[in-house]
């Protein structure tokens, strides 16, 4: 039985540091998605919001907050919070509702307003909180990105120049995307001249936090046909699996991995897309393009290997050959990625799906991957949350 659902409409609010209420971004994105779908707001039977924990109580009940701002119309409502995977979990909840037949059309929406400066844990003496412990010792988020990057250099021969090339490529991709925050054609020299944050990564290797909003209208295939959108792009898989004990890689915010004495160590990042491929019934060889979570430039290369788009250790050689640039064999982050957007946590995974939708329709101005048929996303955040979504034509 087909588990596919149709993507009728997508919408984004431009990413930036606007300082407005997150609800504004979400509503703008939702109205765009509704208009793009060619439906009426009252046709939406299920509103699935991605939560935010930085914007007070309205953020904890984001689904209801957005539904009220769009005008209460009696739809059923849901809110999902799952760190960076919040958007995907909200999408998964809406898909289940549609596949069960309980709703025909759903709105999935996420938005965030981020504070300035470092995100830091609550103070005091709280050694029971791993997040407190690691900051007390001086271990920040970029520390983890630096560890992964250094390991690539020692194991596979990647260089800082390779990492800079990821930034240059993504800057080029995002330059024509009207929704990106950073529109500058950065050079390798720009990256090399930025300050060292977590050796070997410099400031421009690491993504910023942003304000932004994203929304998607999904429906059953029957409904799509009924309104004349039988050829709309489809969601073929959503993976939101947890890691499997014992985790092989030290992940934020932990200061140690699981011990693999009783069970073999496994990579969470590699397990996420495996489930998506199985569910969609397609393989890495079918993928036209990928949107991956480039929290750092080097992490984009890890993701390519975790998505099985190349052998372990081979990502940098694809990059050097231009294969991951639009026009190459397997473009990565055609949207510009987090390098150009910065991270708006509850909107980011949805933004990836919006980009794949435009790509499948041939509407990605200035960054279109010709003949794109299937795309995959990958994303990961704190406390074992992550997602991988497959969109096909």
């Amino acid at each position, binding site marked *: 039985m087909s588990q596919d659902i149709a993507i009728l409409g997508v919408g984004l609010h431009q990413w930036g540091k606007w300082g407005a209420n997150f609800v504004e971004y979400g509503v703008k994105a939702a109205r765009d998605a509704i208009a793009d779908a060619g439906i009426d707001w009252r046709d939406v039977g299920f509103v699935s919001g991605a939560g935010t924990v930085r914007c007070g109580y309205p953020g904890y009940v984001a689904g209801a907050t957005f539904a009220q701002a769009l005008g209460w119309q009696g739809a059923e409502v849901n809110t999902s919070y799952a760190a960076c995977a919040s958007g995907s979990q909200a999408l998964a909840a809406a898909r289940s509702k549609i596949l069960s037949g309980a709703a025909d059309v759903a709105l999935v929406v996420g938005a965030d307003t981020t504070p300035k400066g470092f995100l830091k844990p609550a103070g005091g003496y709280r050694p029971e909180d791993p997040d407190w412990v690691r900051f007390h010792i001086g271990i920040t988020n970029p520390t983890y990105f630096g560890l992964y990057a250094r390991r690539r250099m020692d194991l596979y021969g990647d260089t800082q120049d390779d990492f800079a090339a990821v930034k240059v490529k993504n800057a080029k991709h995002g330059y024509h995307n009207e929704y990106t925050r950073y529109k500058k054609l950065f050079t390798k020299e720009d990256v090399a001249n930025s300050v060292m944050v977590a050796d*070997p990564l410099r400031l421009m290797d690491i993504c910023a936090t942003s304000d932004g909003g994203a929304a998607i209208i999904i429906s059953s295939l029957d409904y799509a046909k009924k309104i004349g959108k039988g050829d709309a792009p489809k969601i073929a898989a959503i993976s939101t699996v947890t890691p499997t004990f014992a985790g092989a890689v030290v992940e934020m915010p932990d200061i140690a991995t*699981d011990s693999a*004495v009783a069970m073999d160590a496994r990579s969470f990042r590699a397990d996420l897309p495996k489930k998506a491929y199985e569910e969609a019934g397609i393989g890495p060889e079918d993928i036209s393009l990928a949107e991956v979570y480039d929290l750092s430039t080097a992490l984009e290369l890890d993701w390519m290997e975790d998505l099985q788009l190349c052998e372990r250790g081979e990502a940098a050689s694809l990059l050097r050959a231009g294969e991951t640039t639009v026009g190459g064999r397997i473009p990565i982050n055609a949207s510009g990625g987090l390098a150009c957007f910065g991270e708006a946590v509850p909107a980011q995974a949805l933004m990836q799906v919006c980009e794949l939708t435009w790509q499948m329709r041939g509407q990605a101005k200035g960054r279109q991957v010709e003949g794109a048929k299937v795309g995959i996303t990958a994303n990961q955040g704190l406390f074992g949350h992550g997602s991988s979504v497959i969109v096909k034509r």
Partner: protein
Amino acid sequence: MGNKSAAIEGWYSLDEERPHLIGTQCQSCQTYYFPKQSTFCRNPDCQSESFEEVPLSRTGTIWSYTNAGYQPPEPFVAPENFEPFTIAAVELEREKMIVLGQMISGVAPADLKVGDKVELVMDTLYSNEDGEKLIWKWQPITGATS
């Protein structure tokens, strides 16, 4: 001064010669835990609630390394003049786990390679009116620190 105590109580021995991290071990499936776990085993196939405190291996090999080029935010206690410090992820062979920690001062990322052998030492994390607060740090075993 001269008064030394642990920055995080109960996480490691303050033995001057051979300090070690204090973990726990599940008495059923033998999985190690650091920080200590003493209620429920996290192995999905293990129902054990029985744990014993154990000293963790004092030596390991570098899984990877990086540095803190920027002064971290609180609750990091920053000295008056912040200097970048090196951080290592160290693989413990017996425990089959990776533990993060600062490297001792004087060791730069450029001095390290994945696979280098290191040992655990006690060093100052910060000082205040109560004296020196100690934390575990990793030190190259070859002594090739500068």
